């Protein structure tokens, strides 16, 4: 049972899409799992042959529990086969063993994908339903011929949940369904856990960004900011400090962003269940690119309350841990706005894509010298192009423009950051 999001601790198997003996390709969808939020299709991360299905449809399993045994190509069948113990034959409901310890597949991968749980791939949005019921309950009811409307739901808000349906159906399972429970859980059972984290991360990014592009009506604003004074101030400040205490320009940009957000609450928070939920605190997600590809955006919590040195210290630590793949779960759960700075790569500006369920993202290009006209004079100044992408369901361009103006104002007075 793979982890499909920071907040997931278990999932319910809804459906197998493969049978024992099937040859599966890497990336193939092998099962459908219901989490608290959505039904999610589970890909297999390894090619091989399905040796045995362990998890039973309808069974709720903790993250990390094995779902099936997979035999790798070329692996002798014998090594994957358990000792010829007689298969336990029993009605499924009683054959279910306690889930083995989560050691088979690590509960939390070292590198977590940056975005919140992948989008609900199969949730019908806006579908009108007579009865409020979970997807699993719906499926079970269909399978067992139970009329959902006749049930009193025990779930949140009176929703009909799987247990209600099972109770109504007498918790019967088809008698012919036979389950062979593995006497031992072989290490090879980690079939459903992503072996290649980069691949997993790419998929997570893809799912999140596709959801963003599909659902969020972005609007984009850009402003050019003269960083001359800020950089000069920073240079003088760094000059008198040992290398370990120096502050990078990006920390100034983060500090200005965090403090500007105080006056733009509509850009700081989440869009969940059709409504905006303001963030409690300003937690800046900092996009950190990983060597070899991929991206994580862990949160610098309480960024507006930190001094410049504290921000720099936090940023340094975060970047290092992100690149070493040692992230903390709290950092993934609650960034309220993401900042992406691609200036080191020499691009002038970034057109960022919002990380759902966040409602805005700020991008900084490189700080580069450019002609700058002010008060009738032309000068060459270090300019940074700051872009904002924000969610039109929550805010308008006017609000975004005010935020960028405030950010520029703050950068002009670095002493106050």
């Amino acid at each position, binding site marked *: 049972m793979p982890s499909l999001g920071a907040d997931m601790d278990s999932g319910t198997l809804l459906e197998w899409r493969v049978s024992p003996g099937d040859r599966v390709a890497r990336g193939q969808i092998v099962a459908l799992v219901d989490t608290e939020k959505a039904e999610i299709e589970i890909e297999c991360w390894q090619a091989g042959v399905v040796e045995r299905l362990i998890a039973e449809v309808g069974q709720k399993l903790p993250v990390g529990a094995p779902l099936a045994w997979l035999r790798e190509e070329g692996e002798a069948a014998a090594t994957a086969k358990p000792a010829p113990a007689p298969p336990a034959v029993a009605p499924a409901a009683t054959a279910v063993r306690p889930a083995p310890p989560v050691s088979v597949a690590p509960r939390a991968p070292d590198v977590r994908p940056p975005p919140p749980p992948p989008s609900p791939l199969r949730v019908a949005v806006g579908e009108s339903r007579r009865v409020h019921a979970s997807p699993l309950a719906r499926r079970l009811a269909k399978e067992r011929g139970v009329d959902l409307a006749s049930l009193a739901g025990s779930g949140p808000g009176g929703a009909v949940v799987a247990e209600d349906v099972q109770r109504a159906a007498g918790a019967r399972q088809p008698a012919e369904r036979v389950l062979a429970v593995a006497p031992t859980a072989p290490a090879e059972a980690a079939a459903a856990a992503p072996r290649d984290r980069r691949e997993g991360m790419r998929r997570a990014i893809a799912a999140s960004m596709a959801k963003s592009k599909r659902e969020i009506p972005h609007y984009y604003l850009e402003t050019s900011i003269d960083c001359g004074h800020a950089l000069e101030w920073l*240079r003088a400040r*760094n*000059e008198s400090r*040992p*290398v*370990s205490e*120096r502050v*990078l*320009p*990006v920390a100034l940009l983060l500090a200005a962003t965090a403090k500007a957000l105080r006056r733009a609450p509509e850009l700081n928070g989440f869009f969940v269940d059709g409504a905006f939920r303001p963030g409690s605190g300003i937690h800046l997600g900092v996009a950190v690119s990983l*060597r*070899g590809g991929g991206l994580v955006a862990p949160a610098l919590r309480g960024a507006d309350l930190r001094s410049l040195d504290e921000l720099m210290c936090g*940023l*340094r630590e975060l*970047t*290092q841990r992100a690149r070493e793949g040692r992230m903390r779960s709290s950092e993934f759960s609650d960034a309220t706005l993401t900042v992406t700075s691609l200036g*080191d*790569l020499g691009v002038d500006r970034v057109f960022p894509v919002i990380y759902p369920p966040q409602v805005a993202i700020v991008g900084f290009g490189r700080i580069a010298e450019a002609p700058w006209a002010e008060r009738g004079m032309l000068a060459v100044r270090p300019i940074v192009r700051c872009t904002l992408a924000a969610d039109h369901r929550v805010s308008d361009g006017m609000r975004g423009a005010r935020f960028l103006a405030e950010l520029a104002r703050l950068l002009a007075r670095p002493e106050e950051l």
Partner: protein
Amino acid sequence: MTRDEIRSLVLRELGRIAPEADLSALPESAPLREELEIDSMDLLNFATAIHAALGVDIPEADYERIASLGGCVDYLAARLAR
């Protein structure tokens, strides 16, 4: 400290920043930033590590002098000889 010792120390620290890079193939005069995809945070970490190892504090104003492997070794050798 000999030039070769400085060189191997620089390579060791670069290897920590870019563990996947083949440093034996690193051209002497190529810009490290592009060659190893080093960003400003990496550069700061590199300068910090050099400071810890050699006691040489590289001011920001000198960063362009350590932009390549050869330049970096030359620069550190000169600083240490001072």
